[in-house]
Structures are given as structure tokens and as C-alpha cells.
């Protein structure tokens, strides 16, 4: 668990708080997306967790321990760190890049080697091909996968990710987001991800922290945030289409009428989102859709009215 306790950060001469009396608890095993306009303090907040920044006042606790009392290098070796520009070491092979933290921790060669293969497999890169390559020989998406593997190398409990998908082209980005989300779910990390992309925050975050001018405006699950923005700024930040975004978070299965199984009308899969279902209804001007299970059989029915009322 990460706890920020009345944390304030001032930069000398700036005359304002970069982070202003922030209170935030991040539960173990959850992913928190920090979002807000640039200069809102989200990156500074993240960098205080691994002591790359020091709070002016207040405390940052990791598993109950004040990070100010830890050795910063020791602390950072146990917190994964991923940044937008990746920051791979250009003069080292991929395997040496990934082995950075194990090397610092004094792992033996065999253990490090096993781990490198394991991690490259995990992020979908072929160890036989990739190990001896240099960073400049990789595409942007591959580089960020290596950066992610490098951060995971010593199996840290916590991962800090600063705009990890920002430098990847939009088409690859969606795929890498999906992959990272799957991996993070599988390895059960406590994750702080800084982003300025609302869709990314909704997709990646179990909870979203919206910040502005160094203050935390709202800290909630994506669904709750979209349904009940705390103030006008949050509402305008989420945008007019927040209602539609919210439909993306609910599956057809959650609201379908199981008692009503119609004949062979146009159908949709049970795990599809309501946004997807609504798009189908609008495109083909239908009153409702039959719902199919994983085996293709009809399991229920979802109507236009059901989708609209789920929104409320």
C-alpha cells in the first residue's frame, strides 16, 4: 500500500505549490491512473513515491514505512520505473538493459538469464532474436516493451509508469495498452500510471485520480467518476461524451434480460460493451439485440431502453 499523507511540494522561486496538501491511498494490487492538465502535479506526485522528488512537507509511506527514512537507491531498486522516452541504455544490448536491476542486486548469472527469457516472453518478444540486439534496432513499441520488462526485472511490488504509451504510434499504442493491462493483472502489481489521456486512464485504472493545480479533485473508480463528477472542472475535463464512455465500462451480460430469449434476430456477444451494443442498434436502427454466449447459443436479450436505463 502506498499512502501520501498531507504531501506538499514547492519548487524554489515558483511561488506556488506544485503539489498542494495531497492525501491519497493506493491499495496493494490496484492500478491508479493519475490524470490532469499539464503542470497539475501528477508527475511530481509519482516521483515522490520513489524519492526522485522530496516533499516539502508531509510523508510518503510505502507499506507503512516513511520513504524519507529509506536508502533511496535501495528503495528504487524495488520499485519498477517506466518513462515515456523509455530511457534504454543505447550502448547496452537488450539483455543487459533488462539485467540492470538484477545486476545492482547482485543476482547470479543463471538466475538473471532465466529471468531475462521469462520477461521477454511475457512482453511478447522472442528472446532468441531480441537478447543480443541494441535499442536502436527496435521499433518504438518494442522499445517500450523492453522498458517495461526492465522495470519488472526484479519483480518489484510497485510499478511507477510516467506516460508509458505517449511515444508509441496510436495503432501500436492500443495493442501495447491491452498487453500491459493483461500482464499487470497477471503479475498483480500496485501500479501508478501518469497520463493525460482520459481513455487510457479509464482503460488502465482501477481508480482514477484527477488533479489540477497540485490538488486532488476526485479519486474514484472510472464508472463512479464518469457517473458523478465532483465539480464542473472534472465534468468538463471528462467531456460531454462521458456518458458514452461509461457505456464502455458495462458489458451486455450485466444488464441483459435472461428470461427473454427471442428468435434469430441480430445478435451481440455477452462480453461486448454497451457502447458497442448501442452502436449496433443505431447503425441498423434496431429496437434490441439477442445476446449470444461463448458457445454461440442465445442466452438473453438487450433492448434500447435497457441500455438507456443502465446509463442512469
Amino acid at each position, binding site marked *: 500500500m502506498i499512502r501520501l499523507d498531507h504531501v506538499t511540494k514547492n519548487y524554489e522561486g515558483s511561488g506556488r505549490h506544485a503539489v498542494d496538501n495531497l492525501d491519497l491511498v493506493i491499495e496493494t494490487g490496484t492500478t491508479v491512473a493519475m490524470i490532469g492538465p499539464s503542470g497539475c502535479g501528477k508527475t511530481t506526485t509519482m516521483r515522490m513515491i*520513489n524519492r*526522485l522528488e522530496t516533499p516539502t512537507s508531509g510523508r510518503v509511506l510505502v507499506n507503512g514505512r516513511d520513504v524519507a527514512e529509506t536508502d*533511496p*537507491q*535501495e*528503495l*528504487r*531498486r*524495488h520499485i519498477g*520505473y517506466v*518513462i*515515456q*522516452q*523509455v*530511457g*534504454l*541504455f*543505447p*550502448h547496452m544490448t537488450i539483455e543487459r538493459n533488462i539485467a*540492470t*536491476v538484477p545486476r*545492482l542486486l547482485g543476482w547470479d548469472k543463471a538466475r538473471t538469464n532465466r529471468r531475462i527469457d521469462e520477461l521477454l516472453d511475457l512482453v511478447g518478444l522472442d528472446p532468441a532474436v531480441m537478447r543480443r540486439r*541494441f*535499442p*536502436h534496432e527496435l521499433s518504438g513499441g518494442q522499445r517500450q516493451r523492453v*522498458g517495461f520488462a*526492465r*522495470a519488472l526485472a526484479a519483480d518489484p511490488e510497485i510499478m*511507477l509508469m510516467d506516460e508509458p504509451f505517449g511515444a508509441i504510434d496510436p495503432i501500436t499504442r492500443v495493442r501495447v495498452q491491452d498487453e500491459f493491462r493483461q500482464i499487470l493483472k497477471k503479475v498483480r502489481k500496485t501500479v501508478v500510471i501518469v497520463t493525460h489521456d482520459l481513455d487510457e486512464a479509464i482503460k488502465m485504472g482501477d481508480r482514477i485520480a484527477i488533479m489540477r493545480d497540485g490538488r486532488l479533485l476526485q479519486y474514484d473508480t472510472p464508472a463512479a467518476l464518469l457517473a458523478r463528477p465532483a465539480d464542473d472542472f472534472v465534468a468538463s475535463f471528462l467531456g460531454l461524451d462521458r456518458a458514452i464512455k461509461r457505456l464502455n465500462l458495462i458489458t451486455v451480460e450485466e444488464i441483459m434480460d435472461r428470461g427473454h430469449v427471442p428468435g434469430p434476430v441480430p445478435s451481440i456477444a455477452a462480453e461486448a460493451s454497451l457502447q458497442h451494443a448501442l452502436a449496433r442498434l443505431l447503425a441498423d436502427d434496431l429496437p434490441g439485440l439477442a445476446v449470444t454466449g461463448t458457445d454461440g447459443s442465445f442466452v438473453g436479450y438487450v433492448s434500447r431502453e435497457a441500455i438507456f436505463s443502465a446509463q442512469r
Partner: protein
Amino acid sequence: MILVEAFNWILANPGTFFSAFNRHVLMCVISLGIALVIAMPLGLVVARSPRAAFVAINVAGSLRSIPSLAILSAAMPFLGIGLLPSVVALVVLAVPPLLLNTVVGIREIDPSVLDAANGMGMARRDIRWQIEIPLAVPSILAGVRTSAIQVIGGAALASFIGGGGLGDFINAGIAIMNMPRLLVGAVPIALLAILTEVLFGWIERSVTTRR
């Protein structure tokens, strides 16, 4: 052909020629070595602070504009004649390009690389030896090449302040109006400079292609 005459003179006086040649090379190697020991650590320290780097780059830049002959002549009133004042003057000549390239090499490292290194818990010393220095090596090598060529040329002038070396043949050639003797000094100096350029160019390329 005066080139052939020059070559014949070398064949006839191998002892004289090679002692001057060795003296020349020795002077260059010592000066370059001392300059490296001064410029590299200084560059590494200075590169950390933008203000210090700015001062270093400008001081080094203006030092570079002083002609070699002026530096060598200026050494004589303070240090007399012989090898020592020559080496001191050549060090002054060699330091600026080395310092400049060390500072630039360090400062051109992608900041995200250093942020990542820091964020993963690498100690200051590890970052210096495993990241900063290896990444600055191509730039430092380019500085060594520039310095080496400066020093090889500059050492030809050491003869004026009694430093010896191949410049002695040039001076003698001019004094007695003996053109072949002049070439005995001039041609090997030119060849040394070209060889150094080619050699360091090759080393630089073989180090740089790996990234």
C-alpha cells in the same frame, strides 16, 4: 628530386633521424597523456553544472584560438628551454579540444537515459562509469583525435625553444637553405598527422557503429 635526396639523407643518418623522430613522438604522447589526465576528470565534473560547462566551453574555445607558436614562445620566459617547457606548452594546446569534447559528450546524453538509471536505483558512481563515460567515449575520442593532430603539428615548433623533435630538421633546413633537410622534418610530421587522423577515425567508427 629533393624527396629522394631527403630519403637518402635519412638512410645515411638513421641515428640522428630516429632520435629526433622518437623525441617527437614521445613529446606528443606525454603531452597528450597529461592533457587527458587533466581534461577528462575536469570535463566530467564540469559537465554536471550548466554554468560551469558554459564557462569551460568558452574558456576552452578562446584558448584554442591562440596560435601554437604563441603558446610555445610564451612558455620559454617562464620555463626556459628544453623538453619541459615544450611539453607544458603542448599540454595547453591539447587540453581545450579534449575538455570541450568531454563536456559535450556528457551533456549530449539523452536525459531520459539518466532519469531511467537514477529511477532504477543506480548509484552516482555506477551511472558515471556504466552510463556517462561509455556514452561519451565517441565524443571524447574525437577530442583525442583533434588534440593529437594539434600536438603533432605543435611539436614541430618545439624546436624553437629547444624541445627537439622533427622540427629541428625544418629549422636547420631553413637556416642553411637546404630543402631536402627541411623535408626530412616536414614529410614525416605530415605523415604522422595523417596516420593519426586515419587511425582515430577508424577507432571512432568501430566504437560508434554499435549503437
